[in-house]
């Protein structure tokens, strides 16, 4: 039974990897602060999926669900704070362009 469920791992892992690549690519390519946050969101979605899949495969569903619930709460708080920071930048510059936050260099 273990071996059988282990075979499920690879396809799921591939999709998790695809989501991760989308998120990272978004972080690299975007010129908009909010879209950068959306990229982070997609990364978190990928990890959530991975946790659920691992719980399903190892039959630790209760544990992973508990972890995922905590994770979602934390995600919400982090996003609220980040949005606050982005709004702060917007009040200063009246723009969401990512090139506004390259003042500190060297």
């Amino acid at each position: 039974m273990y071996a059988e469920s282990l075979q499920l791992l690879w396809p799921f892992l591939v999709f998790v990897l695809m989501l991760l690549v989308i998120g990272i690519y978004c972080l690299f390519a975007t010129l908009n602060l909010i879209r950068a946050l959306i990229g982070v969101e997609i990364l978190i979605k990928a990890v959530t999926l991975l946790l659920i899949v691992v719980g399903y495969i190892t039959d630790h569903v209760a544990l992973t669900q508990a972890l995922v619930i905590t994770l979602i709460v934390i995600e919400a708080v982090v996003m609220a704070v980040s949005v606050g920071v982005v709004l702060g930048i917007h009040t200063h510059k009246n723009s969401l362009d990512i090139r506004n936050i390259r003042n500190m260099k060297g």
Partner: protein
Amino acid sequence: MFLNIIILVALVLASLWTVMTRSLLRSGIGLALTSVILAIIMFRLASPLAAVFELSVCAGLISVLFVSVISLTQPYSQKEIIERMKLMLVRFRLLPFIILGLGLILLLIKVNFDLILPIPETERNVRNLLWNFRQLDLFGQIIILLAGAFAVVILFKEMRKNVR
């Protein structure tokens, strides 16, 4: 399994659309869509409670947060928008091909994980498990919510003062 794969493909497509769509508003809605599809997968993988949370918090709360922020900020002038459209397309043009290639190649490879899986756990009730074994996490959630409350106080409330 076949159905699972289809839903997963839908998930990836939704997230691609989220990242690549031109309007930020649509991007926020796309995020909600991604969350909903993820919740469906969670239901199918025997994790209903997590799915409910995902639906209510991520698809609900966070999407509302994003959409409201996007509508609060009028990001660009008209000229800027046109200029950025082009830039955006150039920058994201590669992404679908990368994802497609990556997915196809990796799915075709057959990988065997030589793992010894752990023994299934005995406690099956999520609520009992959270309360009995993961009390520290619960407590952590409360603290971080408190921190979030202060963050909102500091970052949002005082901001109003400054703007006026």
